């Protein structure tokens, strides 16, 4: 047991942080949008090889998680979870990115679909890979802080290329959950930091919002949730164990609702305005809340694992 980062991990983190630092907030013209996909951040990350960290000798899933978490601290987004962690954990070939992760009904809206070049699909008993034809995608205006789209014509499963059976399905769900939790960890940290700073400045009844104990306690809870998610996901990335991935996702996803509620309450603006950055993180979290079945599915899988399937 040694929870200190290695020198290589620290160097990796510092490298990613240096890039993300330059892209923390979207450009002024994009700040009132629902999301901002940063091609410049993406290009900097690609140029420096950070999205391929997992393929670097001596590095692995844990380093990929560090990259995902740090990139998720930016209010701008880049498709990083599938590209930096999930896809390279499933197959050796490099898929065209951005990559969509999907399961179940393909007629439903999908994260990143309007920009995607590839899709990895959990077909229940097998994993399929699809090339995404941009002409077949309709962009949807949604509340979520991601580009969201639907297929105009839902692809048939025979259009996909099978890359593995049930064992790979388990692996896909494991890494998908880790990627979700890593994005949650970064988004939660930034959202909490943002609101903490706001409450220190904004005055109410002649004092700062931060000086109310009721506010402090709820911010303290938000901080400790973000901290818990961070170390659960690092452990899952280290162990590559589906049980640990379930815990990371289950913990993160069950706390998204109260955390988002509190942060919007304290940031005011009736919780519905987008004149500042908060919604870029919180409505990313809201989109992640139900993925791979959400906290309940992860909890049920934990129950199956620990105490046997329901009879």
């Amino acid at each position, binding site marked *: 047991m040694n929870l200190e980062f290695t020198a290589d991990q620290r160097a990796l983190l510092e490298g990613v942080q240096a890039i993300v630092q330059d892209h923390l907030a979207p450009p002024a013209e994009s700040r009132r949008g629902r999301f901002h996909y940063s091609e410049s951040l993406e290009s900097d990350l690609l140029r420096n090889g950070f999205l391929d960290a997992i393929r670097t000798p001596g590095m692995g899933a844990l380093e990929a998680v560090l990259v995902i978490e740090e990139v998720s601290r930016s209010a701008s987004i880049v498709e990083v979870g599938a590209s930096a962690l999930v896809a390279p954990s499933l197959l050796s070939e490099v898929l065209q990115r951005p990559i969509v992760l999907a399961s179940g009904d393909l007629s439903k809206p999908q994260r990143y679909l309007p920009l995607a070049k590839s899709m990895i699909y959990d077909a229940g008993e097998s994993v399929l890979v699809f090339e995404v034809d941009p002409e077949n995608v309709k962009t949807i205006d949604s509340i979520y802080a991601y580009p969201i789209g639907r297929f105009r014509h839902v692809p048939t499963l025979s259009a996909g290329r099978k890359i593995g059976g049930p064992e790979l399905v388990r692996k896909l769900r494991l890494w998908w959950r880790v990627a979700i939790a890593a994005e949650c960890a970064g988004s939660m940290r930034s959202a909490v930091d943002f609101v903490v700073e706001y409450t220190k400045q904004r005055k109410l009844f002649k004092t700062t919002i931060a000086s109310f104990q009721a506010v*402090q306690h709820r911010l303290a809870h938000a901080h400790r949730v973000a901290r818990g998610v961070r170390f659960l996901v690092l452990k899952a990335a280290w162990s590559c164990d589906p049980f640990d991935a379930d815990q990371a996702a289950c913990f993160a996803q069950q706390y998204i609702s109260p955390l988002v509620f509190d942060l919007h309450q304290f940031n005011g603006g009736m919780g519905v305005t987008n004149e500042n950055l908060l919604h870029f993180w919180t409505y990313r979290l809201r989109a992640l809340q139900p993925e791979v079945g959400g906290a309940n599915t992860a909890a049920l899988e934990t129950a199956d694992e620990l105490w046997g399937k329901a009879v």
Partner: protein
Amino acid sequence: MEFGWSTEQEVYRLRVRSFIESTLPGDWWENYALGMGSDEQLAFSLIFCQALAKDGLLVPQWPKEYGGLDGNPWQQFILSEEMWSWNEPRGAQYMGVNWIGPALMRFGSEDQKREHLTRIASGNVTWSQGFSEPQAGTDLASLQTRAERTNNGYKINGMKIWTSYARRADWIFLLARTGPERKSISCFLVPMDLPGVSIASFPGLVEDGHLNEVYFDDVEVPETALLGEESRGWDVIRYALNQERVGLPRYHWARQTLDVAVQQLKDEGKFSDPVVRAAAGRIVAKCEAARVLTYLVVQQRITGEETVDPNVQRVTAADACLDLMNFLIEYTPDCLAGGHRMLENFYRAQIASTIAAGTYELQLDLIAQRGLGLPRVN
């Protein structure tokens, strides 16, 4: 970064586990583990700790010069985790081992070290903690128990409350006021059999005998009872609490209790309900978050990093335990009405866990103010 245990640590854990399993009586859960501080558990703790000491497992983390093995905090933690799986068979002695001993090493005179450390390290002394008073719990600096200078030492008057283990304790680690300033508090090492010391137990939601008041009526102690400098007791307290900052691995006990509750539900044919199964699974995630945060705190203790993660860990563990208490009430209500001793015992023991040793709210204050830089609230 490495989340796995080394072979050496695994071997150490197996050694501790094997010792516990071979030393505890077969009816441990039925007749001994009746709640922290029960007569049966405290009496057994003396036998148990002396056996632990003989096997080098009581104070392995202490320096060799004081009877330890120069072990590291991970060993101390593994020991603690395993002990909590069995409802802490060391009873009150975990206090002597974890913080009273180290406080003596740091602040004690040579005579005090000679008198107390050997006894703690051999497992044949029981200490209690004389901190809380009716008007001074979370706000410890408002305590009223007073120690006045006499020709030969001090005369102590006042009372302490919530003093676990007091009825069986040989000594009390006592805080008393020695000056006019709010923080003019001193630490005293006081034998419990001195004239003027009396104990009254009172009933509560935990097992009877656990809750005690300790009265000090003109109790005369020599100057040598003072630990550290007069009116500098905060230095001792801070140091002692810092030794305890790893906290108690309650999540470990919670996970085991959850397993028992699930077995009970299976026996009753009630564990196929997905609502119940999902509720149990969510508790596991909270326990695992508390576990990994506790590991982080142990790591920080090794590296000397000062953070609010000990407070983060405590709140996270408390939330996991509260969820489990609710789970027990909702899905196994009969077990808390004499139907299952172990489940009932867990519930009773957890009732005070969000108040004792620093309230839940105090932990949140510390996270907010020291961790997030929010202003102090009066």
